[in-house]
């Protein structure tokens, strides 16, 4: 018998699950990504490199900048282009803006209704209006940073190989410094609120992240030694899903805020580090539900780090010069931390700078196996014990903890 559950709500994109039951026993749970395929790697084949980051941005609205930056980094590495500190800091600032807007959206509008017992944030707003407004204030600030660095709140085209179309002004950086300090108290409150969520889902055995906090040269896992994705991560197609599934050395693993904290606690800013230490024991159990708490701690990290970057740039002054880009034959991989985990853009280019090979691996595809394992664990505990409505609610909460980005996950290619 196969029980088909209705589509998950309050997640980005369209997905559902089916439960396989034999002789009254739960045998399997399949996570089906039913969002249509979007063929992004095919779209970029044969394209001139200059236009590619703008196209890749369209993969996702919540994390467009992570796609732009990963794309730009892959292209720059293929051409052997090295950018100066200023450009790196501005890109990092953009990614921080994205972390803020994405985590705020996830925690306040998608997860908080579970914590407080509502079907959505709009209905929650009558009693908890302040909380919704706090979430929207954080989200708006994150989007404001995305607009400054990316050119628009969604799908901007300002991040280019070699630099930017437009650089932020002194006044804009001062605004970032001011706002990040002003909003810090909201983020600290978020940590208290989401620390109340208990353990559910599966416990992850393996964690993977980039070797720098928000991007890297390579990936790291709990072993610490850096590696390229091709060495340990494999993807396979599933007959029941438009998203592929990644495995780390053949096993399920976790990417996202929780792995970032566990693997890179040393890189955290002071207040974020203090909060991490406070919650460390709980986070180290590896339950996927603690990804929510990890995201709340990252709100604190993002605001502290955004302030630091703005201050550094203001002290040094903005140079605003792009690095010349000479297209040529090459191969490059961009590793970025999208808000929900490791994102990989891998390209090969020809002598004119056109894309001849493209592979994109998104965090939701990497987490897919872990999501299924978590659902299976929950279904085994709940099946026959509670009604279907109650079960679906719990399963949705479990899937939601991964903050899945379904639109992102449905276009993976193997050529």
């Amino acid at each position: 018998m196969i029980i088909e559950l209705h589509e998950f709500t309050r997640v980005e994109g369209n997905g559902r699950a089916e439960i396989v039951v034999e002789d009254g026993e739960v045998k399997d749970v399949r996570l089906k990504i039913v969002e249509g395929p979007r063929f992004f790697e095919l779209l970029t084949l044969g394209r001139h490199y200059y236009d590619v980051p703008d196209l890749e941005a369209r993969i996702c609205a919540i994390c467009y900048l992570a796609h732009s930056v990963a794309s730009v980094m892959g292209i720059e590495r293929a051409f052997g282009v090295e950018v100066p500190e200023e450009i790196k800091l501005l890109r990092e600032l953009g990614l921080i803006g994205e972390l803020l807007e994405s985590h705020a959206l996830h925690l306040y509008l998608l997860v908080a209704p579970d914590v407080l017992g509502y079907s959505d944030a709009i209905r929650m707003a009558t009693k908890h209006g302040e909380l919704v407004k706090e979430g929207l204030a954080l989200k708006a600030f994150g989007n404001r940073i995305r607009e400054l660095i990316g050119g628009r709140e969604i799908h901007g085209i300002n991040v280019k190989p070699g630099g930017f179309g437009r650089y932020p002004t002194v006044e804009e950086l001062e605004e970032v410094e001011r706002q990040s300090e002003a909003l810090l108290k909201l983020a600290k409150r978020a940590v208290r609120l989401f620390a109340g969520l208990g353990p559910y889902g599966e416990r992850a055995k393996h964690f993977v992240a980039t070797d720098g906090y928000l991007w890297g040269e390579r990936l790291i896992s709990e072993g610490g030694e850096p590696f390229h994705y091709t060495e340990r991560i494999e993807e396979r197609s599933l007959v029941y899903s438009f998203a592929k599934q990644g495995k780390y050395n053949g096993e399920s693993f976790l990417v996202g805020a929780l792995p970032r904290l566990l693997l890179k606690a040393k890189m955290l800013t002071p207040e974020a580090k203090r909060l991490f230490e406070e919650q460390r024991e709980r986070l180290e159990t590896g339950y996927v539900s603690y990804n929510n708490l990890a995201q709340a701690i990252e709100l604190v990290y993002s605001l502290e780090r955004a302030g630091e970057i703005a201050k550094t740039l203001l002290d040094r002054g903005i140079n605003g010069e792009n690095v010349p880009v000479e297209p040529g034959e090459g191969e490059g991989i961009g590793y970025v931390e999208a808000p929900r985990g490791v994102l990989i853009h891998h390209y090969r280019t020809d002598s004119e700078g056109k894309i001849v090979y493209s592979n994109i691996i998104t965090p939701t595809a990497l987490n897919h196996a872990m999501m299924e394992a978590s659902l299976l664990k929950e279904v085994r505990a709940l099946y026959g014990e509670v009604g279907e409505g109650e079960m679906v609610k719990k399963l949705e909460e479990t899937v939601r903890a991964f903050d899945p980005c379904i639109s992102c996950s449905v276009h993976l290619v193997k050529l």
Partner: protein
Amino acid sequence: MMEKLKLGVFELTGCGGCALNVLFLYERLFDLLEFYEMGEFHMASSAQGGGHYDVGIVTGTVSTHRDLELLKNARNRSDYLIALGTCATHGSVQASVELPIREKLKAVYGDEGNPMKALDSKPAVEYVAVDLAIPGCPYDKEELYQALMNIARGADPVRPDYPVCVECKLNEYECVLVKRNLPCLGPITLGGCNAACVRSGLGCIGCRGPLPGEVNPAGEYEILRGLGYNGDYIVRKFKTFARWEP
């Protein structure tokens, strides 16, 4: 108190941004909620849908049979249907891969065929008639807000009918096509984005689709050729968000 209009948001295949952007009208979302009652909107709410809608918003392309059913259902249940965003109005980037669906699926997923009933991505407007089309990748939130306010007042929404260049001139941006020889599609693209890309000093990528009426893509093609851009490059640029014929 007057009775509120019932609003539903229906999401076909896309990046999710068009639906999400409705939420991020921020405080003006609460202004809209003075006139509208939110019905189904699965990205934002676990409330289950059903029933009739005064206004329906559909985002994304039809890329699966599920999308097609959802779209027809939305049309049948909505008095006033808005196609929102370039996926719904012109197909956007995902409709620009010109291979047949079987070949695309094979390239991506291997030889399993088409187990999930995928279709070639097409804009919603090719399958059903809509009452209003608001393009943009992403659309301008102000345009959506004004349209919903107008509908609530019983007035016809304003439909922009000028190219991006007009907004460039109003903002006094330097012309990146003439002054910097950048490939800018502003002259043939429908305005309404407040020249967002030119604000960054970059060329318009044409995400709002062709200006209806007297648009002259052949002229734009000649200008870009004259600036030294390769013909294939220009054609691909034209076909990225909408299927412009040069």
